[in-house]
């Protein structure tokens, strides 16, 4: 759970730092990132780079779905899944 929180705050602070529109509104775990103008296609590239480097995961093209990138909650669960922590989440 602690690790989930740390992934969450890491992702959230990256989004707030890196994307001006995320600073203009208070984003929460459910704020839509795609389609709301917070993250555009170039922003997606930056975000993918950040996830790969910060969490040592590899994001392949098939991972780039709205399910995984819709909001902070989806991103956290995507990172956890990629890191093979699904079973820890279930506990």
């Amino acid at each position, binding site marked *: 759970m602690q690790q989930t929180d740390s992934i969450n705050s890491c992702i959230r602070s990256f989004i707030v730092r890196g994307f001006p529109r995320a600073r203009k509104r208070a984003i929460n775990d459910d704020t839509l990132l*795609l389609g709301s103008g917070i993250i555009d*296609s170039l922003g997606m590239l930056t975000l*993918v780079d950040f996830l790969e480097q910060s969490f040592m995961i590899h994001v392949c093209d098939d991972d780039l779905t709205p399910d*995984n990138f819709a909001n902070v909650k989806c991103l956290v669960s995507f990172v956890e899944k990629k890191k093979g922590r699904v079973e820890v989440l279930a506990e």
Partner: protein
Amino acid sequence: MSFAIRRVSPIEDRQELLDLLQRNLGASQERRFEWRHTRNPAGSSWSWFVYDQNHPAPVAMASVFPRRMWVDGKAVLGGQVGDFVVDPSHRSLGPALRLQRATFEPVYSNALAFCYDCPPHSQGMATFVRLGMQPSDKVVRYALLLRSEQFLEKRLGRGLWIKPVARAADLWLQMRIPNHRVPGLEICTYERAFGEEFTWLDKRLSTLNLIRASRSAQDLNWRYREDPLMHAQNGRTGGYRVLVAQRGGELLAFTVFFVQSDGVASIVDLFGDRLAEVGIALLEAVIEVCRRQDLLAVHGFCSDGSELNRLFIRAGFRPRETAACVVAHEKAKDASARFLPPTLRWAFTQMEIMI
């Protein structure tokens, strides 16, 4: 959520294609749909849908429009990527990547010698960055200011003093434009359908080392005489206007421009022989027409590799921002077998980047 991609037909899937285009690009898509997708003299378009496998409605689409091209003096069929839209809720890059890869299929199947895309902004480069592709060239917008009042008002605000300052500035603008007279050259408006003399000029100038679109009479008539959107605008802004330069009755060069609703003229095409002298004369003729109509400015577009850069500068234009990047895809990966080696120059105008 998993996505699937399928090839679609501009005839059988017309309504779904239009729905997607209209909700992403606005309402005016229907008027030019058949003209672009099925009435192109180079052939029908290829189009693809991406859809969520759990919901049958498409969420993204892309097309490739065939284009007759000249590459290093050879006539080939290329393709221009366009109508690339993704619903806002699905702009997670995955659907766009599937589509971008699909647009390479006609090249892999040898239906096209190569394809190119002209993203107008950096966001449009995202899929190419992810695929590790670099732009082959860029198209720059050039601008020539004809009237300064609106320009000054935008920067300095409205005031009584603006009018006399603008008058003085306009006089200076007028003096800044050089006047190159070419003996024996006749420049006139051309309002008929493009004739075979344009095809001959196009063939005669199928220069080595260049990549450019074909300008045969058939291509030009489709592009400039049959575009339904420009026909509809004919009464208001005049549609496409063509000026030709001739000497002793022989066609040497031509230019095509149109007037936008904001009072700015946009030069779409400038092509021909001995452009260093004839092209300048044509540009000056366009400027003269625009000045007589009290237009605000004239814009021109050309790629870095085009000889038009020098012409625009000589005619008093100034380079502004990058209007589009040109990203090309070809089958050969081996540098020695490349169809589009970096030694070739992209001679693109607005004509090549417009969909």
